[in-house]
């Protein structure tokens, strides 16, 4: 701690900043500077009004050269604010930037204390601790890692499509991997979008065909990412392409095979129509699917189940595109950045038995209604209920599965607006009386409140009251044969029973059921609700805590189409920042293994939250990947033989800092 110490002569330059009145009004900065002058190893100790200013920084550079300083300490504000500034200044002065240490006497002292004497003493203690610490600082190198220019976009919904197009248009090569047989996601299922009432397919399909035709986009549908290895700038991806049993290069999407299939009618619930219609084993999700290639479902195709089908489909295909022997393909590629846009799933309304979904045939979810009102849906856009009737009254129940501690705690953000939209569409298609049962109307976006006004003008009934139950129990003859919605009209102040023909449940948005598996594969985090976790909810909504991986769209949290597109653009921009800089700087506060001391016990391997540690099986020693290491210190603490150390936070540095802090404390 005294004498020559580590790493060459110790000549410390100490600067305490007034920060105008911010520090100087509480801390007696001159007293601090005078005190530090008396400490061993200190060559220079002075105070200055604004250290972060240009003259302040130049002062440091000048003093390093003139006084041959080997350590620099600045006592001022939080390192989060200016540590980088001062490190750059030190480097410009010709000294390794990691010989710099910052002491926070603003956020930690002058901004939180009022007793000037005690504050000054605390500032002196902190300064003394830093002085003792810097003895052990070493010169460190900032590592640089190259960024591969290709990008992987996972998920082909509107967010994934927009991100892929943005990147492809800026000249980068994009792999767009989508699990379903077509891109388009949930948006392709919608009828009209709020608040403009644009037809969803009409605005989406041009983008979809742009994706298909873009020379920079490799589109792999019916494919899943199987494995991710590597680190920022250097990811190795394995993609599993599921077999369609159709040769993609030959199929033109004429759909003759579907017509000629031995099944006269579909028997399997159609996924795209949310089970409201049936499809055959050979099918295409919807006529404008991209790519426009059919596929065969091996679970229901007779040829796969028994091997004895007439195969009329093969006969019908004049391009000879059907290949029952097709196998799954494994593709591998290198990318530098990844954007996850895997979207959401809707809340399963069966979890709330009070609303009768699955029990009463005329209770629908909002997604089912989107298909019903859609001209290309199972009923051609006509509102025919499951029991064949046309509804004369409809009840739309908001907040199904959302805002509820018993199911999902959060507000799903889009349901109020899409419930208004469905109310409008239902009125348009049927002239029915429409009742919306809500708790609050959340119409915060651009032109959303005006859309609500429009709905009010259309004489849609808005009843503020959360629905307790939907049942077929009729008390009066006028209620016979209907579904009764019981809710308190909290505005008028009475409990009402509204008999309706059709109930629409505005189901909430929740994370995909496999989001935990996905996040583990990509090494990112999820929030408590299960959505992918952003680095900062306000200032970094599309970054994750893993460098090089970005998130966009509903997988980050419930949101509507404009916000999903905005986030997709943002994620693409963040990826472009990395790619166009070409390389990334890594903070050298990484951990490293002192190989001679490592006993090969493997304790550190599973402990690392960032999967940065691997084991060299030949040498039987642990090895830390500096690019993945975030310097959290867990392995350092856990290593039983003490063989893992962390740059900038080595034991001697920490202990000397502690000793320095406590030196003046009287022994108890």
């Amino acid at each position: 701690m005294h004498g020559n110490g580590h790493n060459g002569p110790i000549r410390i330059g100490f600067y305490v900043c007034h920060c105008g009145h911010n520090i100087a009004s509480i801390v007696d900065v001159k007293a601090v500077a005078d005190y530090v002058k008396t400490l061993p190893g200190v060559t220079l100790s002075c105070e200055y009004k604004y250290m972060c200013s240009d003259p302040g920084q130049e002062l440091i550079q000048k003093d390093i050269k003139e006084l041959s300083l080997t350590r620099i300490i600045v006592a001022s504000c939080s390192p989060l604010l200016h540590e980088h500034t001062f490190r750059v200044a030190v480097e410009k002065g010709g000294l390794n930037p990691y010989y710099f240490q910052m002491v926070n006497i603003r956020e930690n002292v002058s901004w939180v204390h009022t007793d000037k004497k005690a504050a000054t003493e605390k500032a002196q203690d902190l300064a003394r601790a830093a002085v003792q610490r810097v003895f052990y600082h070493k010169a460190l190198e900032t590592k640089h890692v190259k960024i591969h220019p290709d990008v992987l976009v996972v998920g082909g919904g509107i967010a994934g499509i927009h991100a892929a197009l943005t990147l492809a248009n800026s000249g980068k090569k994009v792999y767009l991997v989508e699990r379903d047989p077509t891109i388009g996601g949930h948006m392709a299922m919608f009828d009209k979008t709020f608040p403009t009432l644009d037809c969803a397919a009409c605005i989406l399909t041009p983008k979809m065909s742009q994706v298909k035709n873009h020379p920079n986009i490799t589109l792999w549908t019916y494919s899943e990412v199987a494995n991710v290895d590597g680190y920022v700038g250097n990811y190795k991806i394995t993609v599993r392409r599921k077999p369609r049993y159709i040769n993609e290069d030959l199929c033109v999407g004429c759909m003759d095979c579907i017509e000629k299939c031995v099944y006269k009618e579909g028997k399997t619930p159609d996924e795209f129509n949310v089970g409201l219609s049936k499809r055959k084993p050979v099918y295409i999700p919807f006529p404008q699917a991209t790519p426009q290639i059919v596929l065969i479902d091996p679970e229901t195709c007779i040829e796969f189940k028994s091997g004895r089908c007439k195969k009329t489909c093969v006969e019908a295909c004049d391009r000879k595109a059907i290949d029952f022997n097709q196998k799954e393909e494994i593709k591998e590629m290198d990318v530098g950045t990844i954007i996850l846009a895997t979207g959401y799933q809707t809340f399963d309304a069966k979890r709330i038995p009070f609303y009768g979904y699955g029990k009463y045939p005329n209770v629908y979810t909002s997604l089912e209604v989107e298909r019903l009102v859609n001209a290309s849906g199972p009923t051609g856009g006509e509102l025919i209920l499951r029991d064949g009737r046309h509804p004369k009254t409809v009840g739309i129940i908001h907040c199904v599965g959302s805002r509820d501690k018993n199911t999902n705690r959060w507000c799903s953000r889009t349901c109020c607006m899409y419930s208004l939209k469905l109310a409008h569409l239902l009125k348009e298609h049927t002239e029915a009386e429409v009742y919306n049962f809500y708790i609050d109307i959340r119409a915060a976006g651009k032109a959303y409140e005006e859309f609500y006004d429009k709905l009010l003008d259309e004489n849609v009934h808005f009843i503020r009251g959360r629905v307790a139950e939907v049942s077929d129990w009729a008390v009066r003859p006028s209620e016979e044969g209907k579904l009764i919605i019981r809710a308190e009209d909290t505005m008028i102040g009475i409990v009402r029973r509204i008999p309706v023909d059709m109930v629409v449940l505005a189901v909430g948005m929740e994370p995909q059921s496999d989001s935990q598996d996905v996040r583990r594969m990509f090494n990112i985090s999820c929030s408590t609700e299960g959505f992918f976790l952003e680095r900062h909810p306000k200032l970094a909504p599309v970054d994750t805590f893993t460098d090089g991986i970005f998130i966009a769209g509903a997988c980050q949290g419930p949101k509507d189409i404009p916000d999903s597109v905005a986030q997709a653009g943002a994620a693409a921009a963040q990826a472009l920042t990395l790619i166009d800089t070409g390389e990334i700087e890594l903070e050298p506060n990484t951990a490293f293994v002192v190989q001679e001391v490592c006993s090969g016990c493997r304790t550190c391997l599973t402990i690392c939250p960032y999967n940065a540690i691997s084991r060299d099986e030949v040498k039987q020693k642990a090895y830390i990947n500096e690019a993945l290491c975030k310097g959290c210190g867990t392995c350092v603490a856990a290593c039983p033989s003490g063989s893992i150390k962390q740059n900038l936070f080595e034991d001697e540095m920490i202990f000397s800092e502690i000793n320095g802090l406590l030196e003046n404390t009287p022994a108890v």
Partner: protein
Amino acid sequence: MKYLSYPGCSLRSTGRAYEESLVAVFQALEIQYEELKDWNCCGATSYVSIDEMDAFALAARNLALAETQSPEGTINLIAPCSACYLVLSKTERYLEDYPDVSANVNAKLDKAGLHYNGRVEIRHPLDVLVNDYGLENITKRITYPLKGLKVACYYGCQVVRPFAKFDHSHYPVTMDKLVRALGAESVDWPLKTRCCGGSLTGTTQEAGLRLNRLLLKEAQKRGADIILTCCPLCQHNLECYQERINRIYKEEIDLPVAYFTQLIGVALGLPEKELGMQRLFKKPSLEHITHPKGEIANAW
């Protein structure tokens, strides 16, 4: 497994048929049980309206007595009356969840030389018969499968709420499964757990009678021949005011209301007197549907 049985005040009064049929059925099925010695009133919904800690202490005396009577292991205490079932369950649960309640209550119990250590599980006979004893075992012993009988199962509220221990809080199926195992048909109706009003039929008839009227009308409308209950107050409310409801509201309600244990007893071939059938205002007419075994009871 041996059970302890807590009858509760109602089973010695309006609910006598419940206790009689329960005892008869348990004996016929050879289920071992013993009555809790010197049990006291659970307090129902009334005591807790006056003083809450005392209400817990009152109920907890029974739990403590159960522990004295059965010195080892977990005790399964059967409480047939739904109100007793709820109060005892709530006491047991709150004593576990809230340490200050536990301290307060045990301090009171100490004054009587008693203590509760947390070994009691409160069970309902419906749960015990269907889940512990098992429906297959009941079906094996049936002499008169009740084929053709349409039963509306009425659970009431307190056996399933707020602690949905053995079934769903609003859409339970245990009694329905039992009814089907007895060979009868269970009517699907939406008011299985809608409150009958409890003591309101005695104190506030404008509300109480109407609640029962709604239940009876709907059960009848759905074609039920009989309503089965599992709570003495529900049975009393549904059964005893039908004439009055018909008179005031100009209805034509005419439904027998029995305890589910009574119906089990009939299917098992137990004599009517043992099941307390004569205590009902209206005995269900079962002659035309009970056939000696030979007709195969429908699987549930």
